[in-house]
């Protein structure tokens, strides 16, 4: 069951982890909108350590505004970036 529905504003956690994880630094702490719920998948952050990766974790496609990501962004204000983020990295915003 997905915690966040499409259209919901979410914040990507800014916690730092030394372990392998699927959130690049440039989106940590940023706020965006759930573009879609992608489904549930075995977790690569666990598989990376030779675990099974179960239980499956919900994956979301999150849409961020380019202008909010890059202070010197000079493209169109409506430009967006979409990135897929697992649920345990998302918070309500």
């Amino acid at each position: 069951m997905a915690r966040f529905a499409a259209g919901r504003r979410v914040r990507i956690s800014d916690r730092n982890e030394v372990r392998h994880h699927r959130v690049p630094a440039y989106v940590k702490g940023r706020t965006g909108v759930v573009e879609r719920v992608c489904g549930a998948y075995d977790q690569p952050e666990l598989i990376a350590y030779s675990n099974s990766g179960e239980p499956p974790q919900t994956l979301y496609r999150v849409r961020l505004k380019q202008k909010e990501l890059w202070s010197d962004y000079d493209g169109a204000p409506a430009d967006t970036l979409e990135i897929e983020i697992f649920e345990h990295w998302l918070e309500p915003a």
Partner: protein
Amino acid sequence: MNDNRPEGIGPHDLGGLAGDPLDRSEHDVTHWERRVDAMLILLMRKEVMTDPAQLRRGIESLAPDVYERLSYYERWAGSIAINLVEQGMVTQEELDQRIAAVKARGEPA
């Protein structure tokens, strides 16, 4: 090497950071690079390694200065070694001895 990497962020996590221009020059794949590639395919076929996430994680766990210095397939080789030692397929001592023996023969380790 980036000089503005925030503290605590791995050497692989470069998105958005200023860096040197990319070297886009191509080179022919060398024999040892093919062997590293083949080794990973065989390890996955035998389910010793089961997912590219394991390779990725091993690469990310290389020391930052090592990560910066190694080429693409050298990182693969380093990660495969990390995974195999963790799983007890080989010991670090066995690896070290073998590398020393190959070096002594005057071949690339």
